[in-house]
């Protein structure tokens, strides 16, 4: 549906080529290069060695770190999603009940999204630390639960949650804003009618409100999932994947393989896997949430 009757092929190219060129160089070409490099053994200096599917075979069958990182990534995503989407839905619903102060709450709630990940990493390193006693451990002591004090980032059983929470905290405000805007758009008459029919708040929420915001919910879930799958900065800065591999994500593993072990070929193989994983995740979300909508 072109809007301009008089347009030349040249004018289309003049407007389209610059953005397409930048996008091609920065995004499309690297994707293909990764795919290409994933079939080679290469340290960036010596000649590239074609190894076929060897990298893939090694990744799926011979590399325990890869599987640990994959499992950790799933855990990281789940914690982020629960905090971000669950938290956002609860706070947004509560906010619709408030009569005053909605704007203030919105502003304060989104503030963490403005802060850089490096600043957040510093902040949480100090919040979690045991020696010197950080915020969480001080609070535990303060409320008489001193025996629960822990070095949250050095304990293998808590570290994954500890590196996921800051990421969840950071963006929950953003998703809250989106969901809140969607909740405001639910027609009051619908809810009123349901209440007249004797529906409880809970029923009204799940039968009327939630189905109404479902399209926004799907979008938000997709954004939150793809963002969590590319999560890197905070785990990398807080623990660099450690202790051991207990907070290693696929992204941090890929980064270290590329820039610490300078194994560009194998790092690209992991990259390709991360891309496929993102595409599969988006596809799955569509399938699952769409089907429920039809049922």
């Amino acid at each position, binding site marked *: 549906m072109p809007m301009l009757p008089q347009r030349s092929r040249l004018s289309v190219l003049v*407007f389209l080529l610059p953005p397409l060129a930048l996008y091609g160089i920065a995004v499309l070409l690297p994707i293909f290069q990764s795919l290409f490099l994933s079939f080679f053994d290469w340290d960036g200096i010596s000649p590239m060695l074609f190894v076929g599917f060897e990298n893939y075979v090694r990744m799926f069958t011979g590399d325990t770190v890869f599987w640990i990182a994959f499992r950790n990534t799933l855990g990281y995503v789940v914690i982020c999603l629960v905090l971000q989407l669950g938290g956002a839905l609860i706070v947004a619903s509560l906010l619709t009940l408030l009569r005053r102060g909605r704007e203030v709450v919105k502003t304060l709630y989104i503030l*963490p999204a403005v802060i850089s990940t490096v600043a957040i990493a510093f902040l949480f390193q100090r919040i979690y630390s045991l020696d010197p006693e950080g915020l969480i451990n001080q609070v535990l002591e303060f409320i008489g639960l001193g025996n629960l004090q822990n070095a949250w980032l050095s304990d293998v059983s808590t570290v994954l949650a500890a590196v996921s929470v800051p990421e969840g905290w950071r963006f929950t405000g953003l998703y809250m804003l989106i969901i809140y805007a969607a909740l405001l758009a639910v027609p009051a008459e619908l809810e009123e009618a349901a209440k007249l029919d004797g529906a409880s708040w809970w029923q009204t929420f799940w039968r009327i409100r939630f189905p109404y915001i479902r399209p926004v919910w799907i979008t938000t879930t997709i954004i939150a999932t793809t963002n969590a799958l590319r999560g890197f900065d905070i785990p990398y800065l807080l623990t660099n994947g450690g202790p051991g591999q207990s907070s290693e994500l696929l992204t941090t593993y890929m980064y270290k393989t590329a820039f610490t072990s300078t194994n560009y070929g194998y790092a690209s193989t992991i990259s390709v896997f991360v891309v496929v994983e993102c595409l599969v995740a988006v596809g799955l979300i569509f399938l699952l949430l769409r089907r429920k909508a039809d049922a």
Partner: protein
Amino acid sequence: MTLTATRPIRPSEQESLPRPRRRQLHLQRKLTGVIVALIVIVQVYPLAWLFITSVRTEQDFAGGNPFALPTEITFDNYTRAFATGNLGLNILNSLIVTVGAIVVIVFLGMMGAYALQVLGFRFSRFVRALFLIGIIVPVQVALVPLFVDYAAVNLLDTYQSIIIPLAGFALPTSIYLFSSFYEYIPGEIYEAASLDGAGPYRIFGQITLPLSVNTMVTVAMVNSIFIWNDFIFANTFVLTDDLKTIPLGLQNYIGAMGKVDWTATFAAVCVSITPLLLVFLVLNKAMTYSLASGATKG
């Protein structure tokens, strides 16, 4: 969630309710207010703590309880922060990268949307699908290839090396935001301009571009936050201190053997986040709107 078992009520409805029920609703609303306040406090407390710590003395910080106000306010930490690092240079670098990338994102986004939405062409659906990939795919996939490419053309350790991927990955959202705005520009305006003999270039310069100012602001604001805070591209492609942006500069505060001057570090963190926080608070309404719409359109 059970505590939220109440709903917005309209005043007229409230008046018709019997007294005890009204009291109950009143109580429920008070309770909701308290819960929201608590959640907000937990959410914002780490930030407040950051700022409070940055004006504490070291001894006060080492021994203090986290809820106490500082016994005395000191700005020594800020002096030490500026003395230790290179904050001025870092801020300048961040500004150059942010402004550079934003200009690219806004103008190329506008051009792309103009070609796709206003001019239109045969393969526009395919091109749109291509741009969608950039929204889904994680940025890490570009690191190794770009590092190799930059090394080949001598672009490592330049401003461009950070601006190119930042702009490239932000471009799809920018194009979608402009496109969805251009959808609402009525075709008659273009037809009239065409009848007056204006070609696609003049129409872009004299009609589309001036109308796009609001969307330009939206696109600029959404991206400025992410670009100002970018860590991964800068960390990968910047090799020398001269080009370090704020996020990288902050890392310098981890001293030898991981020993950290915490109060000075927190002062540096405060300096690094304050410009953006101020912009955010001043442009609060527009910014919140931009963030929400930028995120959903993407």
